[in-house]
């Protein structure tokens, strides 16, 4: 949760007075708030944490970091199904648990 993940801005829009973006994290696409990096542009990369862009990053650094986090399983931690993971850790049937 504490790790921020680099992503690439796909598009930007103003939503209810808040600057929001669609961001691609190596294939996973999420809504991201740009209020802390208001001058970020489409095509640029930023370090994103829990739905907020926090700092700009160059493309090469972003790509390398994404590869590392994928390798460490951290993208799964960040974007995967938390209930399934928790069920697996608890040793209960994830399908049964998710059906609840």
């Amino acid at each position, binding site marked *: 949760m*504490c790790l921020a993940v680099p992503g690439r801005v796909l598009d930007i829009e103003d939503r209810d007075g808040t600057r929001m973006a669609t961001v691609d994290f190596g294939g996973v696409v999420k809504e991201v708030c740009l209020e802390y990096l208001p001058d970020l542009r489409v095509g640029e990369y930023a370090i994103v944490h829990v739905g907020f862009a926090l700092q700009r990053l160059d493309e090469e650094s972003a790509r390398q970091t994404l590869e590392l986090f994928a390798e460490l399983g951290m993208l799964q*931690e960040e974007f995967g199904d938390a209930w399934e993971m928790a069920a697996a850790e608890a040793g209960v049937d994830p399908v049964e648990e998710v059906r609840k």
Partner: protein
Amino acid sequence: MKYIDEFQDPELARRLLDDIHATVTRPWALMEVCGGQTHSIIRHGIDQLLPKEVELIHGPGCPVCVTPLEVIDKALEIASRPEVIFCSFGDMLRVPGTGRDLFQVRGEGGDVRVVYSPLDALRIAQQNPDREVVFFGIGFETTAPPNAMTVHQARKLGIPNFSMLVSHVRVPPAIEAIMSSPSCRVQGFLAAGHVCSVMGVEEYPELAERFRVPIVVTGFEPLDILEGVRRAVRQLERGEHTVDNAYARAVRPEGNPAARAMLEDVFEATDRAWRGIGVIPDSGWRLSSKYRDHDAEHRFPVGGIRTAEPAECRSGEVLQGLLKPHECEAFGTLCTPRTPLGATMVSSEGACAAYYLYRRLDMPTTTAREASPVV
């Protein structure tokens, strides 16, 4: 060099390692503050590639790990209430409170929901005006700005049924507490890169000077960590103790000024208990009085909850660098990710989880060092 071929740039890794080997003349102990760094170190065997004189000690930088049991119990109490939709990041689900966790509360009928962003919880509050929506706001300086913005938005948009259970912690007071401990062995710090991407490096020179300890801002990739170690060791060998930024591509000296301004507005400093460690003065944030209406501790009767930490879990010593995970008697036997005694085993960024995940089959067992608490 067991794992070096797995590095993105093995040649550069080898050059950095050669430089570290050539520089070191005596033993040094460095603490990596961030749990993400710990996982990268253990996964890539960086600690095993370094000269035997350089010891890496795991620090307290995992927000899930350091959230005190008492706060988990408050979360469980609030999440069990029928009028509440309790929203949390996924990695809090299996952190043990007293006797159960959020995952079990959901199994018992509690409306616990996992969100990716605190703004998702705010949206749930807008969509469910007849329910109380509570977001579990934990984390270091990286997570605090998103949570601060969410509370700010709740107030701005007038969403009365949204509140936050806040237990934020800050890195610099933790460094101060670690360095002030009589049993401290840390001689240099690899500071947490993403915390610094928000806060900048302005809080560190005073600490580096007062404790005469080098602080090198470091990223998470194996090469980042080797470079951080190289710079810290160079300083130590020269008798220097300055703040050095080895993660400049993501860390500006001033951090993120907009995020820092929002933190100032929404939060105020408070003493905070760290799980397994104890209370560290001024080490946390709580909502300022301006945002009291959105403070879950004011909205729900959880003020009386007081919980003592269990004695059998030694995660407090692990978090202070006084004990390596595998030196704990319960490691891998009584305590596993499926049956965690403490958060360091259950958190994806926890030091015990890193050892269990990557090293459980070849763990040597040694006798734990005598430890005295930080505070």
